[in-house]
């Protein structure tokens, strides 16, 4: 097909190109990535579905406003280098975002092609094309280091090396400021490393992005717990001119039901951190253990719950039950993640809620008692409120369970920097446009501000914050 000759009608007739995936029966026995990626022919076909709309509703749906028509046009023309460079003008982590962004709620939601078919699933597969361009560059070795402006002598501290922190580091460094990223754990990447599993986001991608930052001249300090190793005020004393706080959600919520401190009961954070960051799936080659359970229950219905459930399968569980108190329609997880989980054999137990965990004499969890639920009137979130059905209690035999009902905000920075205002949930209060906090020179973004959100929203905040920090450092005006 010759791209330029296609009419709109012809473009609309091209069906969306599915991305090949590892077979579900095979992939539950490995930790390799599930979707394999487009080849050049697939990318060409998919990119030809784009109508190159002038008003580009896709761009408006993107938190970092990637020039989507332009990068797709470059793929049609086979100019992959131009394509990836176009993306990287506004997004420093395209290989990450192409994999983990909820495109169906963002760029692809407004896509005219999807609208024409009255089906968002038939929108141009922007995320998959983004991944194609990013992977193309990755296969060619090191990325091009962007132009760094002459040194300003100003110093910026970035607290946390997750998606928000990495974005700020790149955008501030490009302006010629000196940047140090402080990471509490022994490896940088934040949730991209400890949280999102290898089969959804290979760690080599994250490590490569961090290396790219270092090649840009950004200093990354691991094992540095801001709030403990040094406070924000001490960072200013050491000569930093601005600080960006992006410490993440990072304080797991539990259900407050009896038995929750039994052995084998994990927060999703702990389970995923053991499995991902600490490589517990290769125990005893790696030292960190994790319960090798046959029957695992996961409580929750978000993306993290899906990650935990799919991880449990890969750690050898025979039965993984995902227990969620509402119905499938209310699940906050991406449709694609739910689909992948079901394909792999995760058993969905909907409209059911755990009320008690029962253990043995050694303190290990052995059963979960649940109650059936029905949907009542809509609650504050607009979703129908789940109401327990009296007398419907039942038990399920388990030997591990994972609580994936969300996170509160991490207290380390707010607790040691009282002049940074927080809201009643402990999230740092930051201006929507500039991400300024109540403390001069301190900005904040990502989950510490948003609560538990997404990688791309964190990056979107990072971009805005970096812009504001660059202005602040240039003008000195707060």
């Amino acid at each position, binding site marked *: 097909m010759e791209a330029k000759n296609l009419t709109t009608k012809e473009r609309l007739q091209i069906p969306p190109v599915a991305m090949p995936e590892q077979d579900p029966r095979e992939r539950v026995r490995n930790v390799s990535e599930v979707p394999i990626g487009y080849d050049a022919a697939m990318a060409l076909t998919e990119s030809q579905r784009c109508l190159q709309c002038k008003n580009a509703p896709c761009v408006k749906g993107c938190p970092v406003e990637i020039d989507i028509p332009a990068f797709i046009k470059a793929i049609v023309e086979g100019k992959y280098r131009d394509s990836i460079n176009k993306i990287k003008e506004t997004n420093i982590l395209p290989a990450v975002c192409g994999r983990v962004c909820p495109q169906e709620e963002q760029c692809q939601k407004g896509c005219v092609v999807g609208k024409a078919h009255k089906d968002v699933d038939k929108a141009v597969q922007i995320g998959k094309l983004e991944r194609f361009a990013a992977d193309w560059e990755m296969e060619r070795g090191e990325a091009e280091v962007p132009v760094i402006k002459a040194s300003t002598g100003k110093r910026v501290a970035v607290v946390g090396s997750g998606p928000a922190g990495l974005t700020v580091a790149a955008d501030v460094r490009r302006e010629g400021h000196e940047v140090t990223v402080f990471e509490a754990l022994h490896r940088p990447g934040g949730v991209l490393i400890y949280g999102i599993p290898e089969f959804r986001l290979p760690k080599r991608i994250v490590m490569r992005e961090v290396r790219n930052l270092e090649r840009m001249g950004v200093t990354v300090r691991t094992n540095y717990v801001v709030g403990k190793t040094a406070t924000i005020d001490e960072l200013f004393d050491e000569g930093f001119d601005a600080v960006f706080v992006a410490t993440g959600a990072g304080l*797991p919520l539990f259900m407050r039901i009896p038995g929750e*401190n039994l052995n084998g009961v994990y927060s999703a954070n702990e389970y995923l951190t053991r499995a991902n960051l600490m490589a517990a799936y290769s125990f*005893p080659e790696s030292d960190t253990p994790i319960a090798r359970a046959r029957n695992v229950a996961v409580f929750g219905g978000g993306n993290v719950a899906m990650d935990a459930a799919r991880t449990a399968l890969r750690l050898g569980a025979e039965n993984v039950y995902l227990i969620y108190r509402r119905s499938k329609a209310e699940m906050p997880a991406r449709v694609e993640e739910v689909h992948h989980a079901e394909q792999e054999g995760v058993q969905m137990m909907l409209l059911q809620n755990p009320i008690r965990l029962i253990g043995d004499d050694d303190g290990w969890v052995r059963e979960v008692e649940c109650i059936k639920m029905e949907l009542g009137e809509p609650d504050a979130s607009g979703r129908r409120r789940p109401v327990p059905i009296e007398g419907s209690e039942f038990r399920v035999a388990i030997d591990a369970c994972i609580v994936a009902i969300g996170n509160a905000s991490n207290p380390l920075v707010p607790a040691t920097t009282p002049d940074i205002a927080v809201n009643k949930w402990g999230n740092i209060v930051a201006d929507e446009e500039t991400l300024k906090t109540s403390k001069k020179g301190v900005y904040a973004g990502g989950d510490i501000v948003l609560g538990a959100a997404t990688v791309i929203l964190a990056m979107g905040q990072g971009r805005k914050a970096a812009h504001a920090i660059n202005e602040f450092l240039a003008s000195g005006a707060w």
Partner: protein
Amino acid sequence: MNKILEKEFITPFVFRMKVEAPEIARKRKAGQFIILRTCDAGERIPLTIADGNADEGWIELVVQVVGKTTKQLSALGPGQEICDLAGPLGKPTHIEFFGTVVIVGGGIGIAPSHPIAQAMKRAGNRVISILGGRTKDLVIMEEKMRATSDRVVVTTDDGSYGIKGLVTDAIQKLVDEGEKINLVVAIGPPIMMKFVSLLTKKFDIPTLVSLNTIMVDGTGMCGACRVTVGDQTKFVCVDGPEFDGHKVDFDEMMKRLRAYESDEKTSRERYEQGCCGKHR
């Protein structure tokens, strides 16, 4: 990477290690801990800081060889480096003038109780230290504790040194002597802290215990370290490590400490057979 400056075995299974860590040394206060890893495949384990010097930029750890990580750490010496070291973590001990403070250190727990004894002494308290060990050789750091205490009582299980008996016997004796105790700080094996707390509750003496639970990140992110204190679940890493001993559910904590017992054994055996864990 943090360079090891000194290492010395003080009992057959306990060693002290002085490590270069200027930033931690500058910030650390009594009661705080670090998390370390000994190699790239290593586990993250918490260890309480036993001493430190901000001017010279070092901290000291006193470590008992228990599992693979502590075994591997014990094999390192001056000039070598610790792969990862982060801290100081946890809340510092609340130090003020209480009056008479009894510091109870059991076995390896004597090491972390030393900086607390020092700080309590500096705050003007009368400090009585009770040092307990199974046998004479396991009563460590006696000289250092004497230097910072108004009175020292030693107990050994086998009677090879000091009073024959447990640290609780020594507390009972102090009470019997009419000693007015305003605060007890107990650090040692969980079972010791449990029985100290049970005893002091009887006499209504406020009691702090320092918990050393399983941790992964040590910054509040994972919740592996949770304990029941009163009717609440607390995270030892960010809410502790010190809690009101009268409210801690020690039985639950001891079960949680045993969660990975067989895996820990596997790791250690593999290491001893030379299977893995090469220091990088």
